[in-house]
């Protein structure tokens, strides 16, 4: 079973989208852990290790997606766990999508992405 951590990094508390995606992934047969609000990148990485997830989904609405994602990717590298797939969703301007992908993010889901598309992309990224 694919295991996913849906995480809300930083101070932003708009979590409607994160919760909706979490429910969609659950209904698609995945195991989902939700981080809760206001988590630091270190806390998110610890949760990902503890829960042994295959996928980390960052939900960011505040516009701080570039520095937050960069921090996460560096941390994963530092700990040698780059095999965990990372997806970023939320208010993400299209010009930032290539920047996130360059950092090693597997997929980006700006607001308005159909849930089905998210489920498909996550399933395709994990060989399980």
């Amino acid at each position, binding site marked *: 079973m694919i295991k996913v951590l849906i995480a809300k990094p930083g101070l*932003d*508390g708009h979590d409607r989208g994160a919760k909706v995606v979490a429910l969609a992934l659950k209904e698609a047969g995945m195991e989902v852990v939700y981080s809760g609000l206001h988590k630091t990148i270190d806390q998110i990485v610890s949760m990902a290790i503890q829960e042994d997830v295959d996928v980390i989904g960052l939900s960011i609405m505040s516009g701080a997606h570039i520095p937050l994602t960069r921090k996460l990717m560096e941390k994963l590298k530092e700990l040698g766990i780059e095999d965990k797939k990372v997806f970023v969703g939320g208010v993400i301007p299209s010009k930032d999508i290539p920047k996130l992908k360059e950092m090693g993010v597997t997929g980006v889901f700006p607001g308005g992405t159909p849930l*089905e598309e998210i489920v498909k992309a996550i399933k395709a990224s994990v060989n399980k």
Partner: protein
Amino acid sequence: MSTARYIKDDKDQILDVIYESGIHVKPVYTPKDLEEIGFSYEEDLNDPGKFPFTRGIHALGYRSRAWTTRQYTGFGTPKETNERFKFMIAHGQTGLNVAFDLPTQMGYDSDDPMAEGEVGRVGMAVDTIRDFEIAFDGIELDRIGVGLTINAVASIILAMFQTVAEKYGYDPKTVSATPQNDILKEMIGRGAWIFPVEHGVRLTGDVIEYCIKAMPKTNPVSVCGYHIRESGATPAQEIAYAFLIAFAYIDNVKERGYEPDEFVGGFTFNFNVFGNMWEQIAKFRAARKLWAKLLKERYNVKKERNLFLRGIFGGGGYGLTKAQPENNIVRGAYYALVAALSGAQTTALCSYDEAYTIPTPHSALISLRTLQILMDEVGLRDTVDPLAGSYFIETLTKQMEEKILEEMEKIEKYGGIIKAISDGFIQRMLARQAYEIEKGIERGELLKVGVNIYVEGEPKEVELHEYNEESARIQIESLKEIKRTRSQKEVAKTLKELESATRSGKNVMPYLLECCKAYCTLGEMTSVFREIFGEFQEPSIF
């Protein structure tokens, strides 16, 4: 989306219309419908300005005074925000509504590691009263009401606001501020909570209690159904939960020995407009009526003006789409129309680019002009509550009233609003509803133009507000400068007094004022609370 569901039969004819709150709408309404609901003009409507205020709280409505236009504004440094305030006022805006950045909302200073990347991003940064001195420089605080969109640290922000208002020569008794100060809604939606529920409610209560005597023209709380609806609530739930939250605050202040008649007149509401137009209008009319009735029944409120439901009815948020962004201008115009037809005291409108980021001056101005066109061009001020007496509207208003009461009962049966929030009962329910709405859109059952009907290819590029990385550096420099020049002795002394007052359960407001005068930072004051109260433990919702 969050509009009505239109269920079609095989021949593709519209069979049934069901509103979000669960009301089925008939194709035709006649006098018989009013008969069936036992409609009485005196009891259900009455004249505008008369109990139960279904037709509005003022006899002459907008004929005597138009609604206040209060666009949510703020970004970057206080200087940048001050410039934007002046820009909006120069274009005819009549109230201010201050947006604070996330570190400020969460009680962190701009130089805190937790603030990294967030300083000035979605609102203006505030560290000390120096920032308010700059932000409100040249603003006539005795003429323009100021909404302060802040909750967990509303007590601190209001203390800063009072300190600066006094510094600029205004009597706090004459300024009319509206700190949002609704912590329970933060725990349901929006998520800018810090302290556990009981301590959060205590701080909200401290602000309300303080304002009774010290700032009588200030509205100490703006209860926000708005954010509850953004999280997936139906219109009936939006009103029901907001009322229960308001009652929790009333109970808190009542326990301190005050009569509700002494303070409920300062309560205001912030409600959401998106969704089906008729359901929204009926929602506001029913809410105004119910609020007056419930205050009378539950709290024995006697003074007529204390029964008024006053509110900012704003449109945007979840109603807007990222697809075909210009459609949001049109949506905004309809939301403003609904707010005006519903008797809003104040309106704020999200701009067309707000599904992406905070608005540019251009888009903020379009929103303001939208409100002004309604006000000055198309006749929304001509007569009070023009929809009154409509067979449909009156039937729907009555049905909405019943739905709101049903939703309130459900929560009271569960054990009350505080328990329902602490347990995550409401959050769980709304997350599920939000998910069902998304699925409804994907199945094409809930229609959304540009999203699941009349879809175009790639989304158009929109000119967006650019975040200025320099703002954070300038803000942190200014904070450093203040820390160098203030009296450390005064800072330590006032923080210590705040600490012992907080521990002993005294009202924190007078102590916060002393801290503000000594240029203590927001982060320093919040740390005192954090140390004593701890943090809210979010209930697990899955």
